[in-house]
């Protein structure tokens, strides 16, 4: 297997089918009594940026480390174009990874760190200067990594991942430690990688951070897949999934009215409730028909972050404040657990 060759796109696509550069099938990881990853299945397409999203502790890092052969797999498969990481031959020519809790020897110079990796992988030494230049560390190449800031270390990790000019990039919370300019730079960089036809899988616990970067999203919670979809589809869901906040002195009457129609609502205060997925155009006439006095009528438009939070926290059935949310409506869509049924408050 040779490395990524931009001139042989056709040949390459037979090795890495454009449909799925990364395939995760029924992947599970048991740490003692803890099931950290549970039957996880998703795919990452070449030429696209896939956001791997979920709250902290949802099994993202474990999944990525299983993909990379660092953590053993309890069940299922995690492959790159059908092959496991250990079977890739010269893996860093195909898969570049930036992981948390990876470090550098503090007394080693940045350049020497990259040289040792290039030597071990049989890459030409010219790649060292090229990648240092690419991540903007050329000026500090001879500096010892112990003197590096968190952001510089993150860039050096990225340089390490890019040494083999891989067609697949795996980035675990890559914006940690980066300043706003660094994050902006990272976004541009990730989009550029995708435009080259590379597959990028990037994890984050914040969707808002990824909104401008990703094409697809894989949302996990408690080690399980919540949803795999495109960002566009998720945005559409956010756009349609609205909530209506109503403040009224006649809360009891309003509840009786709402109990008679197929909607989800929850009381948020003595005089307020929120009706999931409702619109003022639908609710206004209803209130008028029943002559209910309204003090306030607010149409909440769900944001992507709201959708994300409701999807991931929907699994926390024990926490009532996080239940329901703007995703659910008169016609709930998707695998959303824990929506508040009508009448419950």
């Amino acid at each position, binding site marked *: 297997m040779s490395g990524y060759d931009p001139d042989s796109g056709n040949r390459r696509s037979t090795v890495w089918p454009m449909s799925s550069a990364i395939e995760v099938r029924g992947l599970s990881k048991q*740490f003692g009594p803890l099931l950290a990853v549970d039957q996880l299945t998703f795919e990452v397409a070449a030429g696209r940026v896939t956001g791997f999203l979920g709250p902290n502790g949802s099994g993202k*890092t*474990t999944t990525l*480390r299983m993909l*990379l*052969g*660092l*953590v*053993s797999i309890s069940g299922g498969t995690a492959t790159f174009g059908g092959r496991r*990481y*250990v079977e*890739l031959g010269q*893996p*860093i020519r195909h898969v570049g*990874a930036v*992981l948390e*809790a*990876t*470090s*550098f*020897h*503090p*007394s*080693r*110079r940045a350049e*020497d*760190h990259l*040289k*040792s*990796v290039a*030597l*071990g*992988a*049989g890459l030409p030494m010219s790649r060292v200067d090229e990648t240092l230049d690419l991540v903007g560390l050329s000026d500090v190449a001879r500096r010892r990594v112990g003197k590096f800031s968190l952001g510089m270390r993150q860039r050096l990790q990225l340089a*390490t991942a890019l040494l083999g000019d891989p067609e697949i990039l795996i980035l675990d919370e890559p914006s940690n430690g980066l300043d706003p300019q660094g994050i902006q730079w990272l976004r541009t960089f990730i989009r550029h990688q995708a435009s080259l036809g590379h597959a990028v899988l990037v994890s984050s616990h914040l969707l808002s951070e990824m909104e401008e970067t990703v094409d697809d999203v894989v949302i996990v919670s408690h080690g399980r897949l919540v949803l795999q979809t495109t960002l566009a589809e998720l945005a559409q869901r956010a756009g349609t999934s609205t909530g209506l906040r109503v403040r009224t002195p006649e809360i009891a009457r309003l509840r009786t009215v709402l109990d008679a129609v197929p909607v989800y609502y929850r009381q948020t205060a003595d005089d307020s409730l929120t009706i999931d997925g409702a619109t003022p155009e639908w609710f206004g006439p209803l209130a008028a028909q029943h002559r209910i006095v309204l003090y306030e009528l607010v149409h909440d438009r769900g944001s992507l972050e709201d959708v994300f939070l409701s999807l991931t926290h929907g699994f926390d059935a024990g926490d009532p404040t996080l239940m329901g949310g703007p995703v659910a409506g008169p016609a709930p869509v998707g695998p959303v657990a824990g929506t508040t049924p009508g009448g419950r408050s």
Partner: protein
Amino acid sequence: MITLVRAEWLKLRTTAVPWVLTGIALIVNALLILVIFLTKPGGGGGGALVSPGYTVPHTTQQLRNLVGSGFQGYLFALLLGTLVVTTEFRHKTVTTSFLVTPVRPKLIAAKLLTAAILGAVLALVLLVGTVIGGGLTLAARGGSFTDMVHQVPAVAPGFILVFALFAILGVGVGSVLTNQVAAIIVVLGWFIILEGILTSLVHSAFKWVPTGAAVAASNLTRDRGQDFGLFHWWQGALLMLCYGLAFAVIGSLILTRRDIT
């Protein structure tokens, strides 16, 4: 494998610790040489260092002892071997190493080879230092520099072999005990304290313990090893190698199953 060994070598020489340890080994060796020459002949206020009937080294055995005066520096080779593995865990660089070389026993094999070379290089450095430092002192004291140099071929092969074997043992132990502090405490505890206690209780055990095997392998006793209850040099070398490889195999098996989180 050659590329991996070159990468490991680069990793070693681009950190400070191997250089510092080599420096300390050289200083200790220099002090040992000084002790040899401070031991003045006859009385004359030499104090505790007086050794009756002493002359400047001139017999074959005395000259060989001088050339091989840095022999105990094998402990530094052992420590360096341990560090070749444990440093990676201490600084979490092992993640990158396993990403480059996901077949973990392959990485351990590269480290064994690298450590063997490192041990041999340390031995060479100490030998060269001894020949220059010790030889010049000898000449200044009226001894024969040439006579000393003539004994180098008899000493050097065994000396270098033992250092390489100890470095291999270090990698083996380090791959089982990846915690750097634990590994250093265990190897120093064994070689400085436990082994001595064990062999003083059970004299016949000496030929079997690493130090006994190493002394045999060094062949510094010039085929008189059996007189001291030691193995032949090649048997000793083989035993040492077996110790090192046994640890390395166990370590590889453990590491292959280990989750790097």
